[in-house]
């Protein structure tokens, strides 16, 4: 066996791992391996201090392999490849071992079992690392232009940001008008600007920039090409049914959300005077003076919170929609400015007026609005009595569960955001969709706008319910992400692709036929012998061709037969 000098770092993850796994026992067990030169535990392996310690170890001990046993490879693979690179170690001679998501967190009930599994997993990581060869990524040139899908507030702001940083922008909007939901909003917190006014301003800014091409009534109908240089076909409807093709280096999806629409009869929805929050906001925004509904002044309003949100097991919307508490409280204050004498009752489960929105909540209470807390298993009941009066009954948790009956002129169902149905776009871009139906970023904190699809980012409320301000912030994050990639003019492609061993290949053609990307060609060696050859820039590294080779001549780098079999042997072995 080759003599290697491998460093192994076992992470405690501040207790997320070490509360359930005896990390010191793991460290000792793997330190015995003759190829392991350094074996340490760390409170947080990803911390700057530990990263620098690893860099120092690699340099000092001239390590030629690195194993980090911490969280899922989805989180920190790039972090530790960077550590290896900074220390002069080839980044592909590093293996990430998943001790958190696939061990400590999955076996919180079995410390011994989790510890033994950890030892096996880390040993498998070492076994793989022992066999890893240095790899160099394929470098692709990137087109300095981005496609932004959706011209709501996030997409508009992203387009402006991209243009200002010197990138070309194709901005497409499915509707005839830009601005999405924000266009329809009235006065917005905290600057008291009108939604329409904000959108007009942003649209003006977009039009002022030559680098932005805006298409309305437009949709993405095809994505071709490869990372760094995607070909996108944009079809516009209307007078000219036209399809235009552009080359773009990145794609930013900002397709927004839909508002939850209650079922007929859900909290009385369908009865005149029972409105959703967006419907009510429009009414308040449009009212010049005191609010009138159906020719009668509105003297009392009951808001029912969490309609269509935080649904129990089996419900399609189990998440909290985050923004709606604040939106309802803000609407309360807007109404109070126009109808100061109106009685406003808020029937809530929990209030989530986070950050400075707490000030709005306090303001609303101080001005006399009443807040009544109900329990999820005894929701308020809405009905119209025989005399035509709307009535809401609720058990108030704050006054010893007493049943309170409210006679009100309007009932406002505080509805949240739901994911927009966008099946075609999901298919075309291979967008990852989460359990809640919103698009999934790689990591909400560490890589908050990137997706697993190279060159495709998401921002705004297509990720999860957001306020306009948060949507803009994520739009700008997508700008930074695009710029970091496209301003360099080059991006690296994963070198972990399939390769052919020419000594074994007899060119039967099985692999060539099997590759839908056309990555496998033919090459003539000396003596007229034909062998298959794989283009590393075209190969996606799926390995679908490998099991089809009768000569076992194809391996995916980083997942070779020898590496996988060595891992299997380590996982199967005893832990004593």
């Amino acid at each position, binding site marked *: 066996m080759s003599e290697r000098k491998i460093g192994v770092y076992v992470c405690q993850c501040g207790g997320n791992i070490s509360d359930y796994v005896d990390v010191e026992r793991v460290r000792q067990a793997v330190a015995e391996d003759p190829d392991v030169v350094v074996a340490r535990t760390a409170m947080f392996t990803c911390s700057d201090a530990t990263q620098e310690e690893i860099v120092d170890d690699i340099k000092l001990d001239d390590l030629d392999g690195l194993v980090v046993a911490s969280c*899922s*490879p*989805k989180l920190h693979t790039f972090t530790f490849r960077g550590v290896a690179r900074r220390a002069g170690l080839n980044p592909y001679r590093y293996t990430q071992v*998943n001790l*958190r*998501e*696939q*061990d*400590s*967190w*999955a*076996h*919180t*009930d*079995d410390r011994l*079992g*989790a510890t*033994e*599994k950890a030892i*096996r*997993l880390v040993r*498998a990581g070492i076994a793989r690392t022992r066999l890893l060869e240095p790899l160099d990524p394929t470098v692709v040139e990137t087109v300095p232009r981005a496609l932004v899908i959706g011209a709501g507030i996030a997409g508009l702001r992203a387009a402006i940001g991209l243009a200002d940083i010197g990138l070309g922008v194709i901005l497409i909007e499915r509707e005839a008008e830009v601005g999405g939901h924000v266009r329809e909003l009235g006065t917005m917190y905290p600057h008291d600007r009108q939604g329409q006014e904000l959108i007009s301003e942003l649209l003006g800014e977009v039009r002022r920039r030559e680098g932005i091409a805006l298409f309305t009534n437009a949709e993405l109908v095809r994505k071709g090409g490869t990372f760094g240089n995607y070909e996108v076909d944009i079809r516009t409807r209307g007078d000219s049914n036209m399809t235009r093709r552009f080359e773009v280096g990145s794609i930013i999806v900002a397709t927004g959300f839909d508002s939850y629409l209650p079922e007929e009869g859900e909290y009385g929805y369908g009865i005149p005077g029972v409105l959703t929050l967006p419907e009510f906001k429009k009414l308040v925004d449009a009212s010049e003076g005191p609010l009138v509904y159906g020719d009668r002044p509105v003297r009392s309003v009951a808001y029912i919170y969490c309609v269509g949100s935080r649904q129990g097991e089996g419900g399609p919307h189990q998440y909290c929609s985050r923004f709606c508490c604040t939106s309802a409280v803000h609407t309360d204050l807007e109404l109070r400015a126009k109808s100061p004498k109106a009685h406003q009752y808020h029937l809530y489960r929990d209030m989530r007026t986070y950050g400075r929105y707490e000030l709005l909540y306090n303001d609303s209470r101080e001005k006399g609005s009443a807040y009544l807390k109900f329990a999820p298993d005894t929701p308020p009941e809405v009905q119209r009595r025989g005399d035509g009066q709307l009535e809401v009954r609720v058990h108030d948790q704050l006054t010893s569960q007493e049943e309170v009956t409210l006679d009100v002129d309007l009932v406002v169902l505080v509805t949240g955001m739901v994911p927009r149905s966008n099946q075609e776009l999901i298919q075309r871009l*291979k967008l*990852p969709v*989460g*359990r809640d139906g919103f698009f*999934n970023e790689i990591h909400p904190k560490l890589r908050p706008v990137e997706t*697993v*699809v190279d060159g495709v980012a998401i921002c705004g409320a297509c990720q999860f319910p957001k306020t306009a301000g948060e949507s803009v912030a994520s739009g700008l994050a997508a700008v930074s992400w695009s710029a970091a990639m496209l301003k360099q003019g080059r991006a690296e492609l994963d070198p*972990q692709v399939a390769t052919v061993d020419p000594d074994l290949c007899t060119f039967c053609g099985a692999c060539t036929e099997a590759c*839908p990307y056309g990555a496998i060609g033919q090459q003539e060696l000396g003596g007229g012998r034909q062998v298959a050859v794989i283009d590393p820039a075209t190969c*996606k*590294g*799926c*390995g*679908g*061709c*490998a*099991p089809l080779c009768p000569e*076992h001549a194809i391996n*995916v780098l980083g*997942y070779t*037969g020898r590496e*996988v*079999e060595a*891992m*299997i*042997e380590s*996982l*199967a*072995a005893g832990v004593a």
Partner: protein
Amino acid sequence: MATTMAPPAPTAGTTFSPKILVFSTNNISDPGIDLAGSSHLHYSPRAMTIAVPCSSGIAPEWIAHAFDQGFDGVFIASDGEECSYLTDCSERSAKVFERAQAMMAEKGYAPERLKMAAICSVCAEPFVKYMHEFEAQLLELGPVGVA
């Protein structure tokens, strides 16, 4: 000798806990298995996962090797219809499965010791359910290599 390289049968008095090798895929099923952990859903710590790019790239030889090394069961958490690489990933993975079972038959391993199911990137609960069912089935079959 029924099979070579099989681990010794557990000695009397110890309880048999099946060792399961799971093959997952980097973009689809491995995130689903991660989510099971993030949700603190429990399954046997003797189920261990190796992530590969795509389930169509799993060599049948690896599966046979796992049994030779003493794994009692192998579970392929496949990409199913969600594969971002290959539209015919399911068919290709099914062929890998069939070839592996043929190899297992030659070596005398019961075909039920190999399972495959599509696990999506948020399929935490289905994955854990499969693990529980598979573990129960392997408990009935007993340790690999024991007649």
